[in-house]
């Protein structure tokens, strides 16, 4: 018999994690992307490299460092102790921290590209119209970069949904708290509950197809709208 409560709990948790992660990434990724796109600082590409590292690093590297960093000896433990805990591992918050780092390049890169594509022109025109830099940012740069935000948000969301290695290493497999979709699938396969595994894996396949198609369509529309 299919146990839909287990499946549903994993789906809901995964959607929550991806949503929170995407929001956090848009908030902290936007200024980073803006700085990377506009700054003339020499060490700019060093920062860009740090942001892009999760693209190359195996999740086990991130998972290992996170396990130490979130623990009682690391900064995560210090933060947890403020709230009466002792470690951020095995918590939803810990997964958000891991996911933000892991999915960062997927959000920052498209937004940075979009900011770069705007060029100096529109911002200078806004300045001649006496718009403050902040005003110009909100009313000129952000609307023009909207497709970049859309692509970044979709990719960041989707990449977080697909996360596995980091969660496996720092999650502790707690139902409703850290037992996300990919880990649930892994468990179902291991315990030979392949009907459950098929339900989730098939759903993920369809989801991934839709996401990538959506990104391609967004990009095609941008390609058409820019002269």
């Amino acid at each position, binding site marked *: 018999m299919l146990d839909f409560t287990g499946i549903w709990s994993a789906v809901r948790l995964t959607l929550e994690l991806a949503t929170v992660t995407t929001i956090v990434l848009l908030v902290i990724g936007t200024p980073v992307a803006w700085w990377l796109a506009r700054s003339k600082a020499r060490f700019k590409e060093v920062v860009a490299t740090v942001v892009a590292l999760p693209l190359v690093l195996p999740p086990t590297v991130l998972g290992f460092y996170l396990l130490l960093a979130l623990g009682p000896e690391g900064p995560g433990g210090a933060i947890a102790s403020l709230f009466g805990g*002792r*470690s951020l591992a095995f918590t939803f918050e810990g997964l958000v921290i891991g996911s933000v780092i892991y999915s960062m390049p997927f959000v920052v890169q498209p937004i940075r590209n979009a900011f770069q594509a705007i060029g100096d022109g529109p911002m200078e025109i806004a300045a001649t119209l006496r718009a403050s830099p902040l005003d110009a940012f909100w009313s000129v740069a952000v609307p023009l970069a909207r497709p970049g935000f859309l692509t970044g948000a979709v990719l960041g969301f989707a990449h977080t949904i697909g996360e596995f290695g980091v969660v496996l*290493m720092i999650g502790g*497999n707690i139902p409703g708290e850290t037992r996300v979709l990919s880990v649930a699938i892994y468990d179902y396969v*291991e*315990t030979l509950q392949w009907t459950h595994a098929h339900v989730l894996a098939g759903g993920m396949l369809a989801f991934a197809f839709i996401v990538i198609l959506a990104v391609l369509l967004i990009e095609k529309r941008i390609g058409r709208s820019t002269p």
Partner: protein
Amino acid sequence: MNDKQRLLALAVVLAAAVAPRLTAADTVHAAVAANFTGAANEIGSAFAAATGHEVMYSFGATGQLYAQITQGAPFDVFLAADRERPGQAEREGYAVPGSRFTYATGAIVLYSADPALVSGADTLRRADFTRLAIANPATAPYGHAAIEALKALGVYEALAGRIVQGNNIAQVYQFVATGNAELGFVAQAQVAIRDGGSRWPVPSGLYPAIAQDAVLLNSARGNEAARAFLDFLRGDAAREIKSRYGYGPGN
């Protein structure tokens, strides 16, 4: 390069490509439950020294390894952490009938990196901790044994909300060693050769015996090295290593 030289070069390249395959006939590929990692590595070295055969290990949770075996993973022998999975492998035609035997009996230990935390069953009753790590009871027999011990002590209901699961017994040790979980049920073999921390060997009456079976897999039916390895695993040299890691003898 003339044709002759070219042919010679080709022969050298081919020989280099084939050579490791020829020696691979003497390499045993073993799927091994994670709790047996330390002992397996020592037994592997002793086996290589005694017979000249090599053994290559893939460590994992018993359930995970079994799922891989049903899908044709290239293993010759399977050293599980329970009796069920090797028995199932035999019944379902993945293993050579009659080759199964108990190579070790495992024990669980309540362990903490904190030298002052674990004193005995009282530690669980006092519940002065936030996270208790166990191996996934659905796939790892050591996790199942931990749950049974908690139930036997009557503390399972009270502690269920604090349990975090490692994917296998090795990950449980990671969680505890890094302090992310204050304590956890590890395999005695993992801490037998380590000092430090605090520990309580769980009395064997509190959980079902963890008899660990080994079995020869079908693909290795005619593999002499694999059979030699299973014999070695039963022998005196292996027994000495196993007892040093805290395993009871098999049969």
